[in-house]
């Protein structure tokens, strides 16, 4: 989806403001929503790609207006309702509709949370999935405009680059975000010259590397 979240190349977003001795969370609620978010993800009703897409679906004006963790709050409410974990009126009331309904067991208990932080990205090593592109090969980012979730930034579409690294095999976000399967495929680091992306204003020496899924690429 061509949305404001796909920000690479905009120049009207103001200066980068740097805070010294910045706290991890600026208010206690930021930490709480961060932790709630991880706990809800652990229920596996949705996946990280669907989660990212939910943020992208925020209207542009809200996306830009809300702070980072306000966005997290917004979409955790939305996802919990969308996937039937809570009813909209429960959200309003702040209490369960029927307190007699037996509680489920949280997927993420303190004992689990105390363990490794992994979120179970499967191994990228899968010899059964053959790569279509080789390291050193010239490629072009396809000029596609998916209407759903995608991780192909607009600023690379139609541009030519060179495969720098074959990262192995990963789940395809464009299908996984919509629960349409994992469509596992190779991801490549593709190096684009800054001039190819931005023209003469860029330094002839500079480059931008992106990790692109095989379906985003074609032979150049």
């Amino acid at each position, binding site marked *: 989806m061509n949305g404001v979240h*796909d920000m690479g*190349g905009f120049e009207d977003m103001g200066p980068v403001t740097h805070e010294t001795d910045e706290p*991890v969370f600026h208010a206690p609620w930021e930490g*709480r929503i961060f932790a709630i978010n991880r*706990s809800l993800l652990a229920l596996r009703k949705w996946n990280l790609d669907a989660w990212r897409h939910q943020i992208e679906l925020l209207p542009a004006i809200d996306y830009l207006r809300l702070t980072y963790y306000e966005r997290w709050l917004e979409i955790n409410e939305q996802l919990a309702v969308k996937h039937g974990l809570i009813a909209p009126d429960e959200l309003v009331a702040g209490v369960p509709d029927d307190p007699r309904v037996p509680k489920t067991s949280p997927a993420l208990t303190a004992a689990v949370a105390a363990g*490794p932080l992994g979120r179970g990205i499967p191994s990228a090593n899968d010899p059964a999935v053959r790569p279509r592109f080789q390291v050193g090969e010239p490629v072009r980012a396809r000029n596609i405009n998916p209407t759903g979730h995608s991780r192909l930034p607009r600023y690379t579409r139609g541009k030519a680059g060179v495969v720098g690294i074959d990262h192995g095999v990963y789940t395809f976000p464009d299908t996984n975000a919509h629960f349409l399967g994992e469509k596992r495929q190779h991801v490549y680091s593709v190096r684009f010259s800054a001039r190819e992306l931005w023209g003469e204003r860029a330094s002839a020496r500079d480059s931008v590397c992106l990790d692109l899924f095989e379906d985003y690429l074609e032979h150049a």
Partner: protein
Amino acid sequence: MNSTHDHDHPHQAVPSDPALRVKALESLLVEKGLVDRAALDLLVDRFEHQVGPRNGARVIARAWTDPAFRKRLLEDAPSAIAELGYTGGQGEHTLVVENGPKVHNLVVCTLCSCYPWTVLGLPPVWYKSAAYRSRAVIDPRGVLREFGTQVDEDVEVRVWDSTAELRYLVLPERPAGTESLSEEELAALVTRDAMVGVTKVAAPGEKP
């Protein structure tokens, strides 16, 4: 309801204050048994106090003092980083990119906020900001200058846009004049910003 107010848009019935909304959401989820309050406490504590850029700084200092470790780190970062006890959570597929006399690396996530949590903790606000995410790819040298970092014209600026599940950590150049420092003293010089690539590591007493 006001008679002029008859259009049919949904009204926000929940409190607009995020603190109140999060509190309400948390109690509801706890009541329903969907989240465990002790797990929430533990996660907050972990990300506030245990995971953070000091982990990454120790990795960098080790790489500066132990050439065999540096080699392992560049070839297989997750395994090398795990040698220091840091594993999992946005670090399973970490790559380390090395700064040198010919190349300066800079990390960004233009699409969201991908960041190597295992070694750097949660990203700072500027990393997640629209300003950084949008300009780091089109004007990296301008962004670097705003951080007070000058990269010579004959050095390549290489930007890594984290668009998939790979996470990037910059191995900065070891500052001159630090030959006598211990690994621990070196780690104290390494900043989060240098490991994202927006600054260089300054020698002791030098302004970063």
